């Protein structure tokens, strides 16, 4: 049974993180909100004991990523034309770099966000996706290379 205090903690701790992650995969804030809510409901339904906060966070991120996958499947089937027609100049002007990150592959996007924004290590990301560290390194490497190309060489780790 989850208490109000726990609900408060989960919402306060993870709302921003999940929203930002999900915005790498969906095209409007409403859809992202729906998915965050869905992830939180999934949290309510589970009754596992997490080892620590890191474990809890990894679980929530993984559920969010899976929900994004499902959303993409559903979305492509039903609303593909909607986005293509209305995708946006408005959004592009607001999120210039994010729009370029969104052009990367599914895994590259996640890796770039988790590494560069969330500050997760390659090992942590590898655990999250159940892949070897070299695979994550490869996602980051290729993702950065593509971003450099898209952003005309201005993506820089040190910049």
């Amino acid at each position, binding site marked *: 049974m989850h208490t109000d205090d726990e609900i408060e903690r989960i*919402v306060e701790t993870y709302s*921003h993180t999940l929203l*930002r992650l999900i915005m790498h995969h969906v095209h409007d804030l409403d859809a992202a909100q729906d998915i965050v809510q869905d992830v939180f409901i999934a949290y309510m339904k589970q009754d596992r004991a997490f*080892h620590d906060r890191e474990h809890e966070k990894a679980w929530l991120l993984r559920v969010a990523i899976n929900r994004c996958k499902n959303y993409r499947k559903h979305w492509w089937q039903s609303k593909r034309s909607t986005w293509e027609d209305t995708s946006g100049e408005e959004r592009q002007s607001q999120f210039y770099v994010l729009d370029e*990150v969104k052009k990367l592959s599914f895994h590259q996007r996640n890796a770039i966000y988790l590494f560069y*924004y969330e500050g997760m290590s390659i090992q942590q990301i590898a655990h999250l*996706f159940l*892949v*070897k560290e070299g695979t994550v390194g490869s996602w980051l*490497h290729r993702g950065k290379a593509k971003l450099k190309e898209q952003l005309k060489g201005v993506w820089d780790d040190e910049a």
Partner: protein
Amino acid sequence: MKHEYQRELDQIYADESMKQRFRLAMQTHAIETEKPKQHKPIVSISVCALIIMLVFGWMIDSLVNPSSNNAEVPLAKLILHKDEFQIGGLGSVGYGVQTSIPASTLFSHNVPLSLPDKTVYLSVFENVNRTEMGEVRTPYTKAKGEQVLREYSERLKLQDTEILYDNDGQPYVNSLIGTMWLRDQDGVMFTFHPSYIEDHPIALSADSKEEVQANIENIQKNVPDLIPFQKPWIDIIYMDMTLQQSKQWQIQISETSEDPAQNFINHQMKQMMLYADENGNLASIYFPTYDLRKQVGNYPIKTYEEAKKDLQDQNNIFFQQEGNLDEIVYAEIVYHTAYRATYYMPYYRFIVKAKDQSILMNQKSGSVYVDYYVPAVQNQYFQIIE
């Protein structure tokens, strides 16, 4: 630009009304789950139907394939879950772009098992440390962990070692030249201290596979204790398929066995892996450790042609991105070792040309490849359920 990205993301946040919506949804769910549950008849009917289908399917299968019951050693039917499959657990060759090297050369590496043209047998093991979601479930207790670390310290002939404990009480070995720790699920990693590497650089990475091979041979000659195998089987896998970028290698070494099946298991699940730092010097050593004590059985393996037919008929295949199944550029057998896998069992990996070549963007030439997986165990010995 990284900062610009971070600044843009800072602008995306859950405001108070959004958070309130989340709280309400969660509280509503909590209240609803307190109410007594009523059985939904449709669920019971579905479960009954599933059981009948499974039993009936097994009976039909027994009739059609009597050999599955009459094999000398009865083999259990392997039950695979559709969602347990994580392609990341099957190695590192994913999709990539190549501009000049022929695909067959690009993907090929030193695999100790050729693609069979007649039935061969390979072991299937139960993954006793399987986790549903990839959570940490270490096979090492504290005492066992210390023992494993000591064993590896001796294997690497480390001097002046000390067992220490991290904040979670997990043991690690500290020595003058680096630190060895238990990887959460599957092994032990030793990382050299940067100052040690500076003073004692051991060249590892290079631009070509031949140069990497030569570097490893130098290590064998000059630092023989580092590689704890009598007859090392060396496999160098090209990781970064985008040839314009710096080259990355997966370097794994295992014990060569006279028995081809054992040689393959050593290569897949009893290897050591070497990693280089950004200067190409040996920086860390990883010993993956898979618990292979629970062998389910020795299963007959499809021939390459049988597996290829399954691929092209799209029969029991796993993939993430669609490819052209008529354009197979490379194939090999690999063990599935993801944390979520029910079994460590062999799969055929087919690398084919991707349908979506758009990742190439402005490149004038090249191809994008994707990988498909087909269970290598003959079809009558496994079943995939949702």
